[in-house]
């Protein structure tokens, strides 16, 4: 689930870095996790923070990267769906991924991304509407 969410939010390449950092952080924190914790929501929260770190690092990175070094990964899914997700406004992409792929309720999404549950619900709905318009995968599948 976490890899799927990371892929939807970050794309095929950066997703694996985020996944790795998420689970390493989880391993560090694990003994302190309360026994009644919602592990999935917690993992998404950690992944979200790692992704934010990634975006910050991205901004510091030189803009024009002519060629991404081939790290022998993530040839599994590219193409139309990621192209469509990448075009979504950031908030919509997060809300879509956290609700429709991670299965989190809007209340928890709001706790992770900030804002209200209603705003998260609207962002997910707008995101899905836009995806339906730009991504034709389900019609051709």
């Amino acid at each position, binding site marked *: 689930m976490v890899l799927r969410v990371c892929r939807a939010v970050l794309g095929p390449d950066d997703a*694996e870095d985020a996944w*790795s950092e998420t*689970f390493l952080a989880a391993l560090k924190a694990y003994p302190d996790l309360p026994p009644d914790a919602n592990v999935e929501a917690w993992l998404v929260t950690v992944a979200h923070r790692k992704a934010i770190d990634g975006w910050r690092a991205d901004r510091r990175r030189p803009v024009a990267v002519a060629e991404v070094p081939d790290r022998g990964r993530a040839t599994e899914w590219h193409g139309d769906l990621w192209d469509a997700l990448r075009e979504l406004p950031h908030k919509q992409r997060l809300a879509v991924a956290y609700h429709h792929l991670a299965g989190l309720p809007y209340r928890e999404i709001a706790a992770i991304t900030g804002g209200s549950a209603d705003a998260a619900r609207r962002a997910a709905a707008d995101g899905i509407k836009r995806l339906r318009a730009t991504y034709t995968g*389900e019609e051709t599948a």
Partner: protein
Amino acid sequence: MNFDALPRTDDAAQARLHARLVADAEREGLLDVAYRTVDTPVGSLLLAATPLGLVRVAYETVGHDAALAQLADTVSPRILAAPRRLDATARQLDEYFAGRRTAFDVPLDLRLATDFRRSVLVHLRDIGYGRTESYAQVAEAVGNPRAVRAVGSACATNPVPVVVPCHRVIKSDGSLGRYTGSPQAKQTLLGLEAA
């Protein structure tokens, strides 16, 4: 909305990520317990090791999941399937079951056994391949001749059977007595060593 283009499971990616997590965890000193399984004539054995050494060998009859849960509770929840730390143990078990090895040479972490039981386990390592001792003899050897039943418990709760040969302890009348795996497993091990 259809997200099928994003696979729910991706075995190749998961395997790659798992290997990377194991390497990262090892580098950061977070891999408290590494485990793998090996197939043997006495069934699949779960092997688990801390950085100090082999900490658990569990028969299927005990339940691999139960053994891992116990490790999570008593040693650390930082447990990953990481075969490499157990390569030497697995290789030596293969050689043992093929009749080509008579003693194990791997570091042990006996933290799952408390003081008296640990002293019994230490003595068991001195009972050579193909030999047996009675529970009473072992009790005497560890300096507590009346603790025959406690020796029985120490053998029955041996956290690292096969490698620490509790199967070489039998009853004074020659019958096999209890064993952590199954009576058949004890028979198989003693039969292998008698051949």
